């Protein structure tokens, strides 16, 4: 029972981070029909920026804030400069461009920050709570991780549901041509979509790094899990991304806890294949067919 509780709570905290990555992928897919394979690499890069500041004596919170802001800027820059020329073109072009960014950011990070593992601090205690005299795997830092993801998601929901800007972003995602006719600055909306996605990705990068080791490829597995979560949720649906992320977090945690941690990556791919075979439109998408 204690094992089950431990594995479940760990899975929820991990799942919150996968949700954030999945959400970042969904935000970009919805608005530009591009899967951003560089999402993890961009998050890794901004996490290194945070780490540099923290190592230079700044607090964790300054590091987090700067990581989020640099994510915003990086996302906007990447969209405007690199992605804009391939938007609306053949889909393979966008795939190659984001894969190129993925390789490029990893190489740049290795040059600037080194390619060895370095430890990233956590803002809260990493020792588990004690419940009835027993130590469990749920830590104050896990609460912070879940809370941070929840806050950001609520903020995004508020932006999309209750503001004029969010309405324009949703309209642009549904039809760029019609939105343009109605005076919506679609280009700006796409840039903003990429920027917001990169902020969410950066948050995930910093959260998963807390109390762990980082290297230029530490996000690779995380972004794969986030992608599986996004596909599970249907790629179109932000709500689906969140549920998908939590589901994947729990499933992988059970696999790791009961079957062995070496099977986690395999399990993620099995889930991906299973979803694509059984319900390729995902759990939360109404789309009957998806362009591949």
């Amino acid at each position: 029972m204690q094992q089950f509780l431990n594995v479940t709570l760990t899975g929820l905290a991990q799942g919150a981070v996968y949700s954030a990555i999945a959400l970042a992928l969904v935000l970009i897919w919805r608005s530009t029909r591009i899967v951003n394979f560089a999402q993890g690499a961009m998050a890794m890069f901004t996490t290194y920026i945070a780490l540099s500041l923290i190592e230079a004596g700044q607090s964790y919170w300054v590091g987090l804030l700067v990581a989020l802001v640099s994510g915003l800027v990086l996302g906007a820059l990447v969209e405007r400069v690199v992605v804009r020329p391939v938007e609306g073109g053949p889909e393979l072009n966008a795939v190659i461009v984001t894969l190129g960014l993925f390789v490029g950011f990893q190489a740049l990070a290795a040059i600037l920050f080194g390619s060895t593992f370095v430890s990233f601090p956590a803002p809260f205690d990493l020792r588990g709570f004690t419940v009835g005299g027993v130590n469990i795997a749920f830590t104050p830092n896990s609460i912070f991780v879940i809370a941070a993801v929840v806050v950001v998601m609520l903020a995004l929901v508020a932006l999309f549901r209750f503001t004029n800007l969010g309405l324009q972003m949703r309209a642009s995602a549904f039809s760029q041509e019609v939105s343009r006719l109605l005076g919506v600055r679609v280009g700006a909306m796409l840039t903003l979509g990429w920027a917001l996605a990169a902020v969410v990705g950066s948050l995930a990068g910093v959260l998963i790094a807390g109390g762990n080791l980082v290297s230029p490829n530490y996000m690779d597995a995380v972004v794969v899990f986030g992608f599986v979560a996004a596909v599970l949720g249907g790629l179109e649906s932000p709500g689906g991304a969140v549920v998908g992320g939590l589901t994947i977090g729990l499933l992988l945690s059970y696999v790791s806890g009961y079957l062995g941690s070496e099977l986690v990556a395999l399990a993620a791919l099995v889930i991906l294949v299973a979803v694509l075979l059984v319900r390729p439109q995902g759990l939360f998408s109404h789309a009957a067919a998806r362009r591949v």
Partner: protein
Amino acid sequence: MELRPVTVPLGKATDATTDDQAAVFGVAGVSVRFGGLVALDDVSFSVGPGQVRGVIGPNGAGKTTLFNVCCGFVRPDTGTVLRHGRPVRGLRPHRLAGMGIARTLQGVGLFAGLTVLENVMVGAERHARAGFASTLFALSRSDRDERALRERAERALAELGVESYAARLPGSLPYPVQKRVSLARALAGAPDLLLLDEPASGLGADEMAELGELIRSLTARMSVVLVEHHMDLVMSVCDRITVLDFGRVVADGTPDEVRDDPAVIDAYLGEEATHS
């Protein structure tokens, strides 16, 4: 085919067209070639304040191309688009709304995933433009914008009698209702010029009559350019009509003048009559 033009006060409006300075919108000497094909050849028309200008012609006459020139989708090889008598340079579709021009799309073109109200709110956007920063930081100005936008959209829906569908998704609604929503969205931005592309397509006779009355009622607030092949509708609502055939203007005048023009009967009415 029986043609029953509604008598409308033409005198003042007709004077306005002859004076290009007073025209709200128009094109002058527009030619468009697609490769070797001449789609439009030296086409000019203008529409005065509160006027309805019809553009008719048989299939392939260049109606759609002319419409696309008006809204910036097609750049003419020669000639200009005129707004308040001045040439518009670099007209692009996304600039229309800012210029006070609304257009509807053939079909309806509603956002499938947004509610009816939200669809119309996007159209009302021109009047509520919060900057990125103020929206991101949720300043009060953005709240006010949001509320004003919602009210404006609700008014536009009510005006077209479809306010009861506000919370629904467009895909689940009957086609004539979707058409009305799409028109409400065009009107929500309070344009002074409305470009209508085949608004009667897919409508029954009753709905078309209602559409005609609606278009007439809009002239208190705006001018209308109506590209349409339903003769009844065009003859009954338009103040002035441009008749295209093979990309050229073969007639330009009031419904009565146009109807009696032998060139028009040749090009269009004759063909229509033999087909129907």
